[in-house]
C-alpha cells in the first residue's frame, strides 16, 4: 500500500459503476431476514444447551478426569487459527505489493474479526463456573500462558477490528449518498462511522499512515496469538504436546484453515452478490496457489512433528503415535491428513481445480478437516496420560462428546456466521475506493493531487 494516493478516481465515472455494483446487495433483504431467522432459531437451541450446562455443570459434556479438554478447546484452537488469515492476506501479501489481494482483504479481515471475537466466548464455554471469569484478571499470574493468551486474543481482536474499520471509512463516505434503498438508521450509521470524511489529501495521508502502523503491528500480534495458544499445550511434557515446533506447527496450520475459509466466503459473496467482476477467476486461481504454498509448509511441519518422535519411539510417544497411525484415532487421522492436506496440494496444482466452484468444494473439505485436526491434537494425548488410569468408571477413560457440548460448539460457529452475515450485508464487502483507485490509476494517467 503506497503512502500516497491518487484521488483522481473520485472524479472518475467508473467509481459510480463500482460503487453501484458493490452497494447493490447492501441493506435488509428478504433473503437476509430468512437467513438470520434460521441462524437465530438454531442459536436459540444452542443457547438452551448452554443453559443446561450452566445449570448442571460440565458433567453434561463428555469431559471427565482424564480428557478434560475436548471439543471446546479444539474449537478454540480452530477459531484462533482461522482468524489469523486476516494478517496473512492484508499484511504479509498486501505489504509485499500483491495487487490481487485488494478486493479480498476485507473478506479476510471480516473472518479475522468474527473468529477472534468468538474465540474468547469459546473459552468461556469450557468453564464449568463461568461466573469466575473475572478471577483471571483478579488472580491471574503473569507466569501463566493462559494470561498471555487472554492478553493477545484481546489485542488481536482490537487490531483486527481497527484494520477492518479504518480502510472502511472512505467507503462509508462514498456510500452514504448512494444507499438510498436502505433504512434510515443504516444511513445515519454510515454518517456517524464515516467520521466526517471528505476525501481530503490530508485525510488520506493520515489514513494510509494508520493502516500501515496496523499492518505492521498485527504481524507480531498474530504470531503471538497462535504461538501462545500452542504453548498452552507445548509447555506440558505430555506425549504429542511436548514439542519445540508447536508454535510454527500451529501457525502454518492456521494459514491453511484461514485460506480455506477465505475461499469459501469469496465464493458465497461472488455468487450471492453477483460480484464476478471483482472476485474473478484470477483471484480464485491466486488463492489456490496460496493454499498450495501454505499447505506444503504445513505438511513439512507435520512430517517433522510425527517423524522425529516416531524415530525415537519413547514409550509414551510410541503409544500416542500408535493411537494416531493405526489405533483408535487412525481413521480420523488419515482422513484429515489426506482430505485436508495431501489431496488439496495435489489437486490444486491443476488449473481446473483452482476455478471458483472446485476450489470452493476443496476449501470446504479443508476447513472441516482442519476442525477435526484440532480435535486430534487435543484429545488423544489426554487419553494416554503418564500415570496409569485407574479407579474411575470405564466410560471416563475415553472421550465421547455429548449432544449438549456439540450443540454449544455449533452455537459458537453460528455466532461467527452471524457476525460475518451482518458485516457483509450492512457494509461494502469489497473496498470501493481501493478498487476504484487501482482501476483508474492503472488505466489513466491522472495528475497526483
Amino acid at each position, binding site marked *: 500500500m503506497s503512502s500516497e494516493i491518487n484521488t483522481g478516481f473520485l472524479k472518475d465515472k467508473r467509481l459510480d459503476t463500482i460503487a453501484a455494483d458493490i452497494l447493490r446487495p447492501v441493506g435488509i433483504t428478504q433473503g437476509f431476514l430468512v437467513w438470520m431467522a434460521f441462524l437465530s432459531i438454531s442459536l436459540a437451541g444452542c443457547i438452551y444447551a448452554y443453559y443446561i450446562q450452566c445449570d448442571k455443570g460440565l458433567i453434561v459434556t463428555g469431559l471427565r478426569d482424564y480428557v478434560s479438554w475436548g471439543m471446546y478447546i479444539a474449537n478454540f484452537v480452530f477459531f484462533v487459527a482461522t482468524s489469523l488469515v486476516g494478517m496473512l492476506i492484508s499484511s504479509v501479501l498486501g505489504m509485499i505489493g500483491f495487487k490481487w489481494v485488494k478486493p479480498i482483504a476485507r473478506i479476510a479481515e471480516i473472518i479475522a474479526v468474527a473468529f477472534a471475537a468468538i474465540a474468547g466466548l469459546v473459552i468461556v464455554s469450557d468453564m464449568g463456573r463461568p461466573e469466575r471469569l473475572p478471577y483471571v484478571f483478579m488472580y491471574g*499470574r503473569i507466569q501463566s500462558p493462559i494470561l*498471555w493468551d487472554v492478553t493477545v486474543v484481546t489485542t488481536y481482536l482490537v487490531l483486527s477490528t*481497527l484494520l477492518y474499520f479504518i480502510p472502511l471509512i472512505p467507503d462509508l463516505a462514498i456510500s452514504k449518498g448512494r444507499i438510498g434503498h436502505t433504512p434510515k438508521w443504516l444511513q445515519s450509521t454510515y454518517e456517524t462511522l464515516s467520521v*466526517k470524511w471528505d*476525501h481530503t489529501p490530508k485525510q488520506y495521508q493520515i489514513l494510509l499512515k494508520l493502516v500501515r502502523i496496523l499492518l505492521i*503491528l498485527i504481524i507480531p500480534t498474530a504470531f503471538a496469538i497462535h504461538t501462545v495458544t500452542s504453548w498452552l499445550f507445548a509447555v506440558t511434557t505430555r506425549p504429542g504436546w511436548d514439542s519445540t515446533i508447536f508454535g510454527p506447527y500451529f501457525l502454518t496450520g492456521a494459514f491453511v484453515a484461514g485460506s480455506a475459509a477465505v475461499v469459501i466466503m469469496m465464493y458465497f459473496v461472488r455468487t450471492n452478490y453477483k460480484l464476478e467482476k471483482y472476485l474473478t477467476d484470477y483471484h480464485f486461481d491466486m488463492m489456490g496457489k496460496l493454499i498450495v504454498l501454505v499447505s506444503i509448509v504445513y505438511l513439512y511441519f507435520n512430517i517433522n512433528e510425527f517423524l522425529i518422535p516416531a524415530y525415537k519411539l519413547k514409550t509414551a510417544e510410541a503409544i500416542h503415535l500408535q493411537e494416531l497411525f493405526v489405533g483408535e484415532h487412525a481413521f480420523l487421522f488419515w482422513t484429515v491428513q489426506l482430505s485436508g492436506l495431501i489431496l488439496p496440494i495435489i489437486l490444486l496444482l491443476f488449473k481446473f481445480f483452482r476455478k471458483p466452484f472446485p476450489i470452493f468444494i476443496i476449501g470446504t473439505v479443508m476447513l472441516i478437516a482442519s476442525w477435526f485436526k484440532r480435535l486430534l491434537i487435543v484429545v488423544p494425548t489426554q487419553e494416554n496420560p503418564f500415570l496409569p488410569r485407574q479407579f474411575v468408571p470405564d466410560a471416563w477413560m475415553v472421550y465421547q462428546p455429548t449432544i449438549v457440548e456439540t450443540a454449544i460448539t455449533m452455537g459458537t460457529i453460528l455466532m461467527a456466521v452471524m457476525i460475518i452475515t451482518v458485516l457483509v450485508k450492512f457494509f461494502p464487502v469489497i473496498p470501493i475506493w481501493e478498487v476504484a483507485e487501482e482501476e483508474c490509476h492503472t488505466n489513466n494517467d491522472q495528475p497526483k493531487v
Partner: protein
Amino acid sequence: MKKRYLSLLLIFVITLRLSAQQEWIVPAENLSKLSTFAFSDSTRKAGMNLYITNCKSCHGDPGKNNVIKLVPPPVDPASDRMQANTDGGMYFKISQGRMPMPTFKNILSPTDVWVVISYLRSFNPKYAQEVAPKVLTGAMVQNVKIHLNWLKEKDQVQAVVSGTKDKIEQPVAGAEVKLFAKRYFGNLLIDEARNTDAQGQVLFNFPKDLPGDSTGYVQLLARLSDEEAYGESKSETTLQIGVPTYKPPLNEQRAMWNVVQKTPIWLLLSYTFTVLAVWAFIFYVLFQIRAISKSGLSKDQDTID
C-alpha cells in the same frame, strides 16, 4: 521382534507371579513371641494413629481391601490371611520388613509395634490375647532414664542410663542402647548398638557431616533394645551438633511457579513492556481517527468535487 517382546513379558510376569506366591517365612523362634502388656482400648487407639501415619498409605483401610497395587500386594489387615499370623509373626514382619514392605524396627519402638498389633487384632472378633508372663530380670530396675551429652572434643555422644532399684537411683550396666537421629522419613541409626559399662555409660561416635536444621540442631533419640526387661525407655534430646543446612523454600524467591507478586523480573518487564508498546500504538491510532475527523473540510467549504 514381537515374539521377543512377548517372551520377555512372559518371563517378567512369571517372575512376578512366583515372587507374589512366595510365602513370607518367619523363623520358628520368633513365632511365639508375645506382648508383655495386655491390649486395651487405649493401646488400640494409639495403634490406630500409628497405623494411619505409617501403614495406611499401602495397606489401606482395614476391611475395605483398598490396598495399593504392589508386587507382592499388601494384605488387608482385616483379612483372614493377615489374622492367621501369630502375634510373634506379625511382630517379626513389621520389624524386619521385606521388599516392598520397609523395615520398621528403627521407626517404631518395640512397644509401638505391639500397639499397632493391638489395633490390627481389633478386626478379628475371634482373637483372644495371650500375654507373656512377666520375666523377672536380674537387674529389676525401674524408671529407666537415658541422659544424652555431647562430648565436643571427641565428637562423641555419651548416653548415661540409670534406673531405680530398691528406691535408690543407680546406673544400669550391660544394657544395649541404640542411638538414632530423626530424619524426615524415619530414624537413622547412629554408629551401632552398644552396651553400657559399669557406670551405665556408653559412647557413640557421631559423624561430622550429618545435616542438621538451619542452625545445626539435630533431634536425637536413644532407646534400650530390651524393652521387655527395662520397660519402655526412650529419651529424646535436641543437640546443636549437625551441619547447619538451610534449604530455602521453593516459593521464597521469584520463580515461574510462584504467585504473581513473585513473578521473575525479566518476565514482568517483557510482558509489561510488550503490552504497553502495542497498546500505545493502538491508542495512537484511535486518537488519529479524531484527527481524520478534524481535518475534513469545514462546513462552508465545498467538497473536493
